[in-house]
């Protein structure tokens, strides 16, 4: 039981990995493209948590972790914005959110 109450590096890494697995599951099982993009964002947040955890426990100054985290966040948000614009341009009706129907249209 002591493992659960001494909060340390391991706990944050477990949180990060569970979050990553949740995002991966969302990417794999969801048919809605918008939810897939959101799941990618979940995975990105898990990466940021990993960076900050290592920065906090191994570096203490957090400068490097902050820089890398902000960079990762910027890239993720740009990626999501571009993905949204492309999705919107592919089809602006309600169907465009369904990946299976979009695949059928392309074929």
């Amino acid at each position, binding site marked *: 039981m002591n493992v659960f109450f001494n909060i340390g590096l*391991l706990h944050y890494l477990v949180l990060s990995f569970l979050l990553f697995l*949740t995002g991966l599951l969302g990417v794999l099982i969801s048919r*809605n493209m918008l939810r897939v993009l959101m*799941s990618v964002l979940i995975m990105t947040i898990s990466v*940021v948590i990993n960076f*900050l955890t290592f920065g*906090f426990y191994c570096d203490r100054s957090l400068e490097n972790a902050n820089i890398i985290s902000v960079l990762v966040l910027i890239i993720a948000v740009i990626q999501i914005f571009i993905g949204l614009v492309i999705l919107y341009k592919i089809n602006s009706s309600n169907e465009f959110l*369904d990946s299976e129907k979009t695949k059928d249209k392309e074929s």
Partner: protein
Amino acid sequence: MESNIIYFYSVFFLILGSAAGIIFSPKMYMSLLSLFVLFCSSSALYFGFGANYTAIFQLILCGIVLSGYLFLLLKKIGTMDLKLKLNSVGKIIVSSMTVAVLGVLFLLFFVEEFENSLYEVFNFVQEKSFDAINFVANIFPLHLVIIFVFVSAIVLRVFLSGLNPNNEEQN
């Protein structure tokens, strides 16, 4: 000490719950709300680390700008009430098994190797990349990134609409 434990576990379950909410919520607007909660709760976690800059940055860029943009987009195309659609049962089972195998591998790795190798690996990476990180810290140009965002948005607009900006003026 106790407050630290309560803080960690409340944030832990808030983050995982909102992540699950994004994927499994029955309507689209609930998913968007879960995304917003995820941003807020993860920012609270960053505040706990003392990474205030990242936390505020994420709150503004993701929590306000991205969530607001998604809200407006969903409202514009009328998909706020879109129902949850998942893949076929076979794909869900295979995906879940893949994720479960990854999880088991991760747990085995931590149980067997955590105290032996993880710190060593991290220290090795940190030593080798220390110069590179310093270099990035010195030249990291936020304003250049913002300019690149605008340039890529303009290029994308031109590319997707099949026009160049001058054509519009001529028309």
